[in-house]
């Protein structure tokens, strides 16, 4: 990957260790770090969450806006995901116009949520053709110790699930003074989770630390959710100059439903 900053020596060591199924922090190749979720990190947001996976930390906030619908979906609300890789979160991040990683992160979070059907966009319509809600998901990494995409996607669903739909005044503007009780129109069963697999040599690993992530050569991210009792992949994106083999993809297809169950169980504890 283009931002490779790890030394060749570390990379070679990691490659050898991965081939033996070992990692610096003692985890197995597919073991995830401990997950922690905290809600309501900003009272001014309609919903918010902080996610920690090891030393990686991301905060996500939801804001709602009203506006006119798109002409091709007059009876549907909208979703907008944005994110910024703040120089606060890593010596690797720099101020200035967004680089590729800053563009890709919100797009991947967006696609996993949108395609899963977690949000009922028709219920976000206030008046057909005139007024609809836009759900805005803002993702901010606070400390990047690897696997920011997966952490952000968990943060986004947690924040969405905690979010409240504000009340409107008579002229159709948001009235923050009015007490709001309604939740967002979300599916009770669909919860998209993203899994990024990283490859170094012939080894596939999950949930890398920053160092491991920088040593790896290829990444492929999948969004997966439950849909009518079946597991469904909702999004996929491969990153990096090196190709993947069919065998890698088939192996991932066997791992991913199991990992989804595992994380799903962990998440339910926090919801």
């Amino acid at each position, binding site marked *: 990957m283009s931002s490779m900053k790890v030394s060749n020596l570390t990379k070679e060591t990691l490659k050898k260790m991965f081939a033996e199924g070992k990692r610096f922090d003692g985890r197995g190749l597919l073991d995830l770090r401990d997950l922690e979720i905290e809600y309501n990190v900003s009272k001014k947001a309609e919903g918010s969450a902080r996610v920690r996976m090891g030393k990686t930390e991301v905060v996500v906030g939801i804001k709602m806006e009203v506006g006119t619908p798109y002409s091709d979906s007059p009876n549907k609300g909208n979703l907008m995901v944005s994110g910024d890789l703040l120089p606060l979160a890593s010596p690797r991040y720099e101020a200035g116009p967004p680089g590729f990683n800053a563009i890709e992160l919100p797009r991947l979070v967006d696609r996993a949520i949108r*395609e899963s059907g977690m949000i009922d966009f028709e219920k976000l319509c206030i008046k057909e053709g005139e007024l609809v809600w836009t759900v805005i998901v803002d993702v901010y990494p606070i400390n990047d110790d690897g696997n920011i995409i997966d952490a952000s996607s968990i943060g986004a669903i947690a924040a969405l699930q905690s979010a409240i739909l504000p009340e409107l005044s008579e002229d159709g503007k948001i009235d923050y003074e009015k007490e709001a009780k309604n939740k967002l129109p979300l599916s009770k069963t669909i919860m998209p989770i993203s899994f990024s697999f990283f490859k170094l040599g012939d080894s596939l690993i999950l949930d890398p630390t920053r160092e491991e992530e920088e040593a790896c050569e290829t990444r492929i991210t999948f969004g997966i959710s439950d*849909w009518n009792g079946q597991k469904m992949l909702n999004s996929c994106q*491969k990153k990096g100059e090196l190709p993947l083999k069919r065998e890698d993809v088939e192996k991932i297809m066997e791992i991913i439903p199991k990992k989804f169950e595992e994380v799903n169980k962990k998440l339910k504890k926090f919801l």
Partner: protein
Amino acid sequence: MATKNEFKRVDGRKLDEMRAITAKVGVVPNADGSAMFAFGDTVAIAAVYGPRLLHPQHMQNPQKGILRVAYDLMSFSVYERKRPGPSRRSKEISKVTEWALEPAVDLKAFPNTVIDVQIYILQADAGTRTAGINAASMALAHAGIPMKDLICSVAPGKNGQAIISDLNKEEEDYDEGEGATDFAVAKLANQDEYTLMQMDGKIQPERVKEILDIAEKNCETIYDAQKKALKEVVNPEGKK
């Protein structure tokens, strides 16, 4: 809802059938290499300039050349005019296209240089990134850049439960049952090396095999069309 077996496609194609392919090489005489590739109503043109010295100098890599891709839609290629200039979508597609093409190109042969690949979509009817990759792969070959293979790209996917290939716009907007899934893939023509994978929609993990089976089969057809076009360069004089 139609079941897998009886699913009828809007344009009457077989489930694993791509749209009609058109491939031409040498469409931009000024370029070092160029090509157009169409899947039905989706038309992409690609031009390659380089290898040429990369400026600013600090961006040069003394170990290998840089492949730089710019993909975008022409403003009139879609019903609702696309504002000219790169969007976040086109920046993402440019980058994944770079990664899709790079494994085929011997960049070590050209240190300190850049190979610029320009891809523009004249007419968009779904599958623009895959058409663009096919065009760019031919344009690179036409420019005489050493390559270990051609890159072939196609987007199989799903409508409801039926796995189909090369979705057109109407199929991409299908919204019954499991809806529409678009699974763009690129691979080295003669090797088991996948260089692009991008998907959105709904597909069961165990069905991804079916996507790869179709992609492999379709890529053989695309490869033949690419080779044929490269042997019949439209404008051989235009090439330097």
